[in-house]
C-alpha cells in the first residue's frame, strides 16, 4: 500500500524538465533580441545586422541606428525586464502576497514625484548642465529617497502587512504632490510627463546601460546567492527564523535589493507597469514550482522575454507611432496571466 519513494529519481525528473524550460526561455530571449535589432521604422535583413554588430567602428545610417538606438534599447529592455521581475519576486515572497509588485512600496511614486518637479516646473531650466540625465537623476533620487524612508520604517515595524500599508501611503503621498504639480503645470509640459509616467526603453545611453549592467547585475547575482534563505521565507518569517535565518538582516536585504533594482530601472525607463507583478506568476506556472533557486533566474529570463516582446509590439504595432510600454505589458500580459491561472487552476 505504501508507495516507495525514490527522492533522487524524483528530483532528477523535476530538474530535467525545468532545465528544458530554461533552455527554451534562453533561446526565446536571444531570438527576440535579434528581432528587436532587425525591425523598426526601417527594417534590415539579419545578415546586415550581424555585419554591423561585428563592426562597431563603422559608419553610415545602419551603424548609427544599430549602435546608438537599437542595441542600447534592446539591452535595456532585456535587463529592465529581468530586474523588475526579480524585484517583484522578492517582494512577493517576503510579503507572502500574490498581488505585490516592485512598486508596492512607493518606489515609482517617489521617482515620479521628483521627475514631475523637473519636468513640470521651471526648476529643470536652472539645472541645464545636467540636462541629458536630468530625469534619470531626478527619478533616481525620488526612488531611493522613498526606499530609504521605507527601509528606515521597516527597521521599526515588524509586521509585513503594516509595511505594505506604509508603502501604499507613501505612494498616495507622493501621488498627491504630483497631482498638484500637474494641475499647476503648463499644458504642453504635461504630455511629456504623462508619457514618461508610462515608461519607455527608448533613448538609453551607453553610460546608462553600463550602470544598469554593473549595479543591477551585481544585485541580481547577490540575490541568486541568497535564494536559500529566500526559500526559507516561503513558509513565513517564523519558520525561517526556526531554521536559523537571521530575519532582521535578511528582510532588510530583501527590501533594499528589491527597491534598488526597481529604482534603478524606473529612474532610467520610467515606471514600467505589470512586469514585476505578473512575471513571477508566469515563472511559477511555467516552472511548476515556488523554489526560488529556480524562480530567481527563471523570472529573470521570463522578464526579459516578456518585456522584449512587449517593446517589440509597442514599437511596431502602430508604427511609426510608438506606444507606451506599460500599455502593452498590461494589455497583453493581463489576459495571459488570467488565462494561465484559469487553465492551470493555479494557486498563488
Amino acid at each position: 500500500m505504501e508507495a516507495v519513494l525514490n527522492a533522487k529519481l524524483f528530483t532528477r525528473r523535476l530538474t530535467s524538465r525545468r532545465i528544458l524550460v530554461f533552455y527554451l526561455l534562453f533561446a526565446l530571449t536571444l531570438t527576440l533580441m535579434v528581432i528587436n535589432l532587425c525591425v523598426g521604422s526601417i527594417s534590415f535583413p539579419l545578415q546586415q545586422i550581424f555585419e554591423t554588430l561585428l563592426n562597431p567602428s563603422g559608419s553610415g545610417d545602419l551603424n548609427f541606428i544599430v549602435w546608438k538606438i537599437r542595441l542600447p534599447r534592446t539591452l535595456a529592455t532585456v535587463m529592465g525586464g529581468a530586474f523588475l521581475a526579480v524585484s517583484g519576486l522578492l517582494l512577493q515572497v517576503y510579503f507572502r502576497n500574490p498581488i505585490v509588485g516592485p512598486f508596492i512600496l512607493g518606489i515609482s511614486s517617489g521617482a515620479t514625484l521628483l521627475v514631475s518637479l523637473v519636468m513640470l516646473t521651471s526648476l529643470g531650466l536652472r539645472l541645464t548642465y545636467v540636462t541629458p540625465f536630468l530625469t534619470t537623476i531626478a527619478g533616481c533620487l525620488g526612488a531611493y529617497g522613498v526606499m530609504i524612508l521605507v527601509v528606515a520604517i521597516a527597521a521599526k515595524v515588524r509586521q509585513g502587512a503594516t509595511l505594505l500599508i506604509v508603502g501604499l501611503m507613501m505612494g498616495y503621498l507622493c501621488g498627491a504632490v504630483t497631482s498638484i504639480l500637474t494641475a499647476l503645470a503648463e499644458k504642453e509640459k504635461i504630455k511629456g510627463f504623462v508619457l514618461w509616467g508610462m515608461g519607455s526603453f527608448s533613448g538609453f545611453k551607453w553610460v546608462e546601460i553600463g550602470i544598469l549592467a554593473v549595479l543591477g547585475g551585481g544585485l541580481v547575482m547577490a540575490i541568486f546567492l541568497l535564494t536559500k534563505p529566500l526559500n526559507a521565507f516561503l513558509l513565513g518569517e517564523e519558520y525561517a527564523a526556526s531554521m536559523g535565518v537571521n530575519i532582521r538582516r535578511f528582510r532588510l536585504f530583501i527590501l533594499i535589493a528589491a527597491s534598488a533594482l526597481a529604482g534603478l530601472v524606473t529612474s532610467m525607463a520610467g515606471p514600467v507597469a505589470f512586469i514585476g507583478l505578473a512575471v513571477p506568476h508566469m515563472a511559477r506556472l511555467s516552472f511548476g514550482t515556488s523554489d526560488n533557486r529556480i524562480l530567481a533566474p527563471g523570472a529573470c529570463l521570463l522578464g526579459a522575454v516578456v518585456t522584449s516582446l512587449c517593446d517589440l509590439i509597442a514599437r511596431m504595432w502602430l508604427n511609426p507611432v510608438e506606444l507606451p510600454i506599460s500599455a502593452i505589458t498590461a494589455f497583453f500580459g493581463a489576459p495571459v496571466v488570467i488565462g494561465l491561472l484559469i487553465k492551470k487552476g493555479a494557486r498563488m
Partner: protein
Amino acid sequence: MPESSPPLLELKKITVGYRQPVVSDLSLAFGRGLFVSLLGANGSGKTTLLRTISKHIKPLSGQAFINGQALDDIKPANLAKILSVVLTDRSSAPMLRSLEFVALGRHPHSDFLGRLSDRDLTVVESALAAVQGANLADRFVDELSDGERQKIVLARALAQEPTLLLLDEPTAHLDLRHRLEILAILRRLCRSRNLSVLAAVHDVESAAKVSDLTLTIKDGKLTAFGQPETILTPESVRELYSCPQANFDSALGGLEMASDGQAGRAFVLAGQDTGALMCRLLAKRGYALVTGFLHASDLDAHVATALGARVLTVDAKPAPGSATPSEKPLDKIDPDFNFLFDQAIKELTHCDLLAVAPLSPATPESLIQIRARLWERAKSLGLPILELGSNGDLSPIIEALDRLTPAHSKVAA
C-alpha cells in the same frame, strides 16, 4: 543514556511573555525519547512558552538549557539542527510539491546555495516515510487535505533531524482519524528516533492517552508536571480549564459533560453495557441521573460517574469515585439486596423518568427481583418508562424522549 548527561531541555525559573509576564518562574527538565504534552486553557501561555524555547522571543527572566547549553549561547543556525517546530500558522506555500516542501527542512544542513546532497534526499525520504506520506510526494501542498498537509508539515520538521520537536496544537482542525494518526506517528518517533516531543495540546483526552509526561499551566504558573496518570484527575482537569461541568475520567481517559439537570431526574436501570449510552443520551437532554445496579468498576459506572450520576453499586462498600472498589458482590453479604432496594426506591420517588436497559445474562435472581419491584413502583408513581429492547436499538428511546421534551425535538427538526 548515562545518568550524568544533562537533560535535553531544562528550564530554570523562566518567566516568559512579551512585555508582561505570561507564565512566571517555571522550572522543569526532561530527557530524550519522551512525549511531553503541554496543557492549559486558551491564552494560558502555551504558545508563548514554546516560542521562548524555540528562541523566537527572549525570556523575561530565567534561563533555558538544551543539552546543558544555555539557549542564549546557541547560534540560531546550530539550534535549527537540534530543534524544529510545527506552528499553528497554516504555512501555505503555493506551487510547491510535498517533497520540495519537506526538503525545505534541510535548510540548516544543506550547503550555501541550498543544493541537496544524496544524504539530504535520503533524510527527506525517511521523513516522508515516517509520516506515511511517501505517496504524497508528488502532490502540491496546497492541494492536500488538512490531515495530509499536517503530515507534510511534520515531515518538514523531521527533515531538520531534531532531537527536540516543538509542536503548537498539532492536531487542531483534524478529524478523528488524522488526529490519531498524527499522535501515533509522534509517539512512534519518540521511541524510534529517540527524540522528545513537546506539544501544546488542546484536548486533555489525547494528552492523557499519548504522553509520557504532562505539564499544566494555569494563571501564569506551572501547576503540575509529571505522568498524566497521576496529575490528571477529575479535580485537576476541572480546575485547569475552570470548567465545573467537565468530568474527566482518568481510567477511561475521557471527558464527559455533567448534566445540568434542567429536564428533571432520570433513573437508569443499567445492564448489558448499554447503560453508558443511555446515561449519556439522557444527560445530553438535561436529565440528572441515578443509575444502578452496577459494580463500581463497570464501564457503565465510570461513564455515569463522569456524567455526574449517582451510581448505586452492588459492591460491598459503595464508594463512588473510589479507585479500588471491592469487587465482592453484595449478595454474599445481603442476599436479598434489601439495602440496595431501599436506596433505589428513595431515589425513584424524586425521579421523572425510568429508563430500563435489557438484563445481562449473568444477573443474579435477587437483582432481577429488585428490578421488577422498582418497575412496578415506577408504574404506580405514573412515571414514563423507556425500555430498551434486547437488540440495543436506541431509536425508540430517542423518539420517546422527543415526545417528553418537545423543545428539543423542535430544534432537531
